[in-house]
């Protein structure tokens, strides 16, 4: 992208001028250093492509962890007018409601009678991970899965996984209204039947870390986050159920794109008007998959707690295990935002981006209303992760959205090539991280050098006022999918 098309408008903000078929400009949050790596792949072109979709409002946004995806860039945010706009399965991605849950504990490393290695091994044997992982809990019938698709995390609680108090600490209480199992294919039900409670592969992980730094004492206290205490971060989504729903609805929306004569620069941007039957059906199917993912994370969290109790031989109250927050980062949501001088209902697509609502938002639980919504930003497995909160600026500037992680800088292939000849387990152990994985190849693909510097990503968002840093976590043990 030329310098005429891309220009810097402040220390952390860049703009792609409106040109050709773009309906709005592109807006990218990045430091100079991050922009260098962003320019090395096709992601800026994808920002401009998204800007061409009907009904887009304001800007086609990219967060500092942006990288080349398929269709939408990963790290992309776009809001579409509810009357004139579209919804795109490719704008959500295959892993619908892929997301992150942060859990806090009362334990410090010194309190552990066993090692982090023992804890990781216990969780590893209790939570199925890796390619096609299955069988964490009984295989669910079609009727069970329909309930999962409607009820999300509360289905898991009803079935003995966790406590109803957990729901307070999940985005949308872990249940999106408007799911509709009747429009979901048999294929999706088949793929999801034995996958509730499984981690999957790729970049999915479970991490035990400790609170290394507190930046905002009031917010940290509110969230029950205290220095040196152990925390657990879980990253997974809707597994084969979501992948199949995305696949099915890209086909549906490719036909809709032709039917409604929508011009798209890439087939993966297939979309349907929000008001059309195809658009409404996708929204309902996507919400069902999102509920599957919320249930999945709720079940896995409960399996992790059980593993810890068993390994350490202590009671739930001694562990003090509870969710801090559970966030979706591949999703489309109908939300009300102020645009210009008026309130507008929009469909916000967040593809590899998280919601980051500021203080006083009515959708936040009472306990977090003063501090703003927790925003979880895991880094790579060797360095650090961040807990932040959303801000009023995010509400004004990015439709209440922020970054979701470090963002890849090397392709998986390049990362594997770079890892050749390196003792990966030893290298990670030297930085104080014990790792277990079903496939060694996954560790190579997910090594720290494959990712951008997460602190640079977080500092950029923090300096732009989109989020506020609350705490930093140092990883101690990781299970890679």
């Amino acid at each position, binding site marked *: 992208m030329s310098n005429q098309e891309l220009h810097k408008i402040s220390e952390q903000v860049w703009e792609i001028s409106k040109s050709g078929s773009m309906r709005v400009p592109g807006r990218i949050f990045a430091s100079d250093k991050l922009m260098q790596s962003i320019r090395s*792949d096709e*992601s800026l072109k994808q920002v401009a492509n998204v800007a061409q979709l009907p009904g887009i409002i304001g800007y086609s946004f990219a967060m500092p962890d942006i*990288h*080349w*995806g*398929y*269709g939408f860039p*990963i790290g992309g945010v776009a809001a579409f007018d509810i009357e004139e706009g579209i919804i795109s399965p*490719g704008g959500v*991605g*295959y*892993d619908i409601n892929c997301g992150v849950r942060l859990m806090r504990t009362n334990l410090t490393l010194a309190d552990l009678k066993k090692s982090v290695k023992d804890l990781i091994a216990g969780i590893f044997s209790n939570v199925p991970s890796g*390619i*096609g992982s299955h069988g964490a809990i009984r295989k669910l019938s079609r009727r069970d899965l329909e309930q999962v698709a409607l009820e999300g995390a509360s289905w898991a609680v009803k079935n003995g996984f966790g406590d109803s108090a957990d729901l307070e600490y999940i985005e949308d209480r872990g249940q999106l209204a408007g799911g509709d199992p009747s429009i979901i294919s048999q*294929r999706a039900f*088949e*793929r999801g039947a034995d996958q509730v409670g499984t981690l*999957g*592969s*790729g970049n999915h992980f479970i991490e035990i870390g400790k609170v290394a730094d507190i930046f905002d004492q009031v917010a940290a206290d509110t969230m029950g986050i205290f220095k040196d205490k152990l925390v657990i971060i879980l990253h997974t989504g809707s597994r*084969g159920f979501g*992948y*199949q729903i*995305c*696949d099915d609805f*890209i086909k549906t929306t*490719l036909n809709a794109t032709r039917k409604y004569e929508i011009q798209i620069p*890439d*087939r*993966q941007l*297939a979309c349907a008007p929000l008001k059309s039957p195809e658009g409404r059906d996708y929204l309902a199917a996507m919400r069902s998959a999102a509920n599957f993912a919320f249930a999945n994370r709720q079940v896995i969290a409960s399996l992790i707690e059980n593993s810890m109790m068993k390994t350490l031989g202590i009671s739930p109250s001694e562990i003090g295990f509870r969710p801090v927050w559970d966030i979706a980062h591949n999703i489309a949501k109908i939300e009300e935002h102020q645009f210009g001088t008026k309130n507008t209902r929009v469909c916000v697509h967040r593809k590899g981006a998280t919601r980051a609502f500021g203080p006083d938002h009515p959708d936040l639980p009472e306990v977090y209303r003063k501090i703003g919504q927790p925003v979880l930003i895991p880094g790579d497995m060797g360095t650090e992760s961040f807990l932040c909160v959303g801000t009023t600026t995010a509400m004004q500037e990015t439709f209440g959205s922020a970054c979701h992680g470090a963002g*890849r*800088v*090397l*392709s*998986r*292939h*390049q990362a594997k090539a770079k890892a050749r000849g390196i003792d990966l387990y030893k290298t990670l152990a030297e930085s104080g991280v014990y790792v277990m994985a079903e*496939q060694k*190849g*996954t560790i190579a693909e997910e090594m720290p050098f494959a990712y951008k510097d997460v602190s640079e990503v977080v500092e950029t968002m923090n300096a732009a006022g989109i989020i506020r840093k609350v705490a930093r976590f140092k990883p101690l043990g990781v299970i890679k999918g």
Partner: protein
Amino acid sequence: MKKRVYTTFPHTADLGIEVYGADLPALFEHSASALFDLMINPRQIKEKETVEFSVRADEPELLLREWLGELLYYSISRHFIFKSFRIKKLTGRELQATATGEAFDSQRHNLKREIKSVTYHELKIIHGDNGWQARFVLDI
């Protein structure tokens, strides 16, 4: 795979594939071989059972994606892996083919990666001086 009929191209998050074939049936067969070669070493697969596939789509590129999508779905849902492929009929809108392989056995089969889907991102079929070429991106 005896002869390299595909290469991967760098894609930050996912996996880009370029496949070559002397004609369209060869291109479709090689695309299927590439898909499974990226999941598992074909030397680990025995040719025990043959499955028939019939696929329709409006354009050749969409037909290619449908063919690969059907193979992937069959593989995931039936825990089955394929080694060889034969195109019996191929028009611009219809494909009939067979795929031969065996049931997945975790004792003998070592999967390299999970492929979530064959995306439509920059999906292309090009006819050049040296035959046919297809380009697609896998979500992994």
